[in-house]
């Protein structure tokens, strides 16, 4: 049995003037015990999918099942077995940390004590503040409390909608370590994120943009399917280098990528040799050109159907 099965889901939102297609014929499935990531920018359709799977929103067409329960017919059963952490903080701001957790335990007919072992790891960090109102918590602590509340009824599947958005790199790392420990306890996790570097922490991912899935696979398989050599280029003057690389006739794509620029050639023959010569002529010093393995972000940009690509050529 699949934990989640989504088939040809379409969801549109109509406004006075126009219709927006939020989810455009999306299909995927999540295996039991898997961490499955929906990776994409705002507007990709991630939240709509989460809301459909957690029975809070009804799709226009298509079908979806969570642990074999239909999201429309069996919504009550689904609500008992899933934990949902929405993108926006949605706990009771004027209840304390402990009251919030107790409340969520109670509405699921359980107690904090019954399932304490599941949340202990996360909740321990909050216990010193358990009498503080949730509204007065800092961002990172709110996030930990929200996760504890989503876990307290021991769900079979966790739905986490952008749990790390706006969170600093250290806290993001810690959060993913928590997810790994939950996975080890047998919980299936569907998680969304706009941060491409988190993709490799998932077992499988769906890259999404504008309501469509661009690709579904294991992160490493997606990287392997890049299908082109990718080069990291560096020189003393990185800003000039970006402009020069974009003007190089054999450049196919060139993007700034942290401390290097990432480049693909139109033709490989003599590629690096010609480029070296060209950059020398342009007055670059300490130039390095290194063949590298693509990251998920490289793959995402390659797959993106981007209407304004022409602007990148300066």
């Amino acid at each position, binding site marked *: 049995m699949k934990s989640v099965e989504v088939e040809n889901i379409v969801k549109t939102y109509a406004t006075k003037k126009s219709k927006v297609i939020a989810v455009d014929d999306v299909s995927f499935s999540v295996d039991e015990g898997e961490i499955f990531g929906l990776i994409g920018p705002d507007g990709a359709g991630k939240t709509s999918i989460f809301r459909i799977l957690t029975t809070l929103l009804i799709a226009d067409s298509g079908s979806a099942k969570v642990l074999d329960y239909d999201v429309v017919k069996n919504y009550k059963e689904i609500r008992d077995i899933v934990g949902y952490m929405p993108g926006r903080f949605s706990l009771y701001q004027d209840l304390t940390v402990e009251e919030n957790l107790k409340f969520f335990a109670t509405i699921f007919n359980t107690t904090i004590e019954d399932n304490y072992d599941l949340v202990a790891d996360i909740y321990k960090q909050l216990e010193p503040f358990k009498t503080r109102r949730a509204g007065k918590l800092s961002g990172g602590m709110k996030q930990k409390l929200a996760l504890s509340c989503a876990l307290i009824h021991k769900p079979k599947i966790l739905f986490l909608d952008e749990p790390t958005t706006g969170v600093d*790199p250290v806290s993001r790392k810690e959060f993913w370590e928590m997810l790994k420990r939950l996975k080890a306890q047998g919980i299936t996790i569907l998680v969304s994120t706009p941060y491409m570097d988190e993709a490799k922490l998932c077992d499988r991912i769906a890259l999404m943009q504008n309501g469509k899935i661009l690709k579904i696979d294991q992160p490493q398989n997606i990287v392997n399917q890049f299908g082109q050599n990718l080069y990291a280029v560096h020189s003393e003057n990185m800003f000039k280098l970006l402009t020069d690389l974009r003007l190089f006739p054999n450049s196919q794509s060139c993007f700034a990528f942290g401390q290097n620029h990432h480049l693909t050639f139109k033709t490989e023959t003599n590629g690096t040799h010609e480029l070296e010569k060209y950059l020398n002529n342009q007055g670059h010093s300490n130039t390095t050109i290194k063949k590298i393995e693509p990251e998920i972000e490289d793959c995402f940009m390659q797959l*993106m159907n981007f209407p304004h690509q022409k602007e990148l050529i300066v």
Partner: protein
Amino acid sequence: MKNEIVIKTEKLTKKFGDFIAANEITFEVYKGEIFGFLGANGAGKTTAMKMLIGISKPSYGNAQIGGFDIYKQTEQIKKSIGYMSQKFSLYEDLTIRENIQLFGGIYGLSNKQIEKKGNELIDKLQLHDEADKLVVSLPLGWKQKLAFSIAILHEPKIVFLDEPTGGVDPITRRQFWDMIYEAAHHGITVFVTTHYMDEAEYCDRVSIMVDGVITALDSPKNLKEQYKANSMNEVFVTLARGAKRGE
């Protein structure tokens, strides 16, 4: 570039009761520089930024923004800076042109200037077909690029960008940085916060705040050498891991 100082702070401090949100922050930013203002959640970045743009009074310490004093000349400061954030940038129920008129007016431009600069902006972003549409109908990436262009419409000395690229797709994020480079090239100082560590690499200099204190400030290259790290992400993790006050 190093000649003219546009931001100068001395022991700038903000306390909320016993809690010291920003603790004796001292730094300088130069004209035309891209200055990355990094820190963990809760490190005090927002508090510091609010003092710099003149909307929060420090507990003690001094600062000059574009040569103006943050205690006595907050109105002049507001005229010489631009500001945009991920959370608030434009009025969604106004059209693109109306947003340009509104912000142009707030920043003190004449109607003639607004018209001229507004048209230039629409040309540059190729938004002719969208100019009279509501901002709400624009994709996020376009909104952010437009918001940045409007934030520098009045040619401020400094533009403050608070996580401008959050949630934006990877290509638009890079186009956004093209615009940042261009603004800096024209002498506008860019003061930017981000959680994307690849973007920290694009800054001329970067400061990292931990628990209310600036614990590191240098060029990305020097910081990587100093902390024997391969990337700014490693530098950040090394410094911020020691943070006591978790957000």
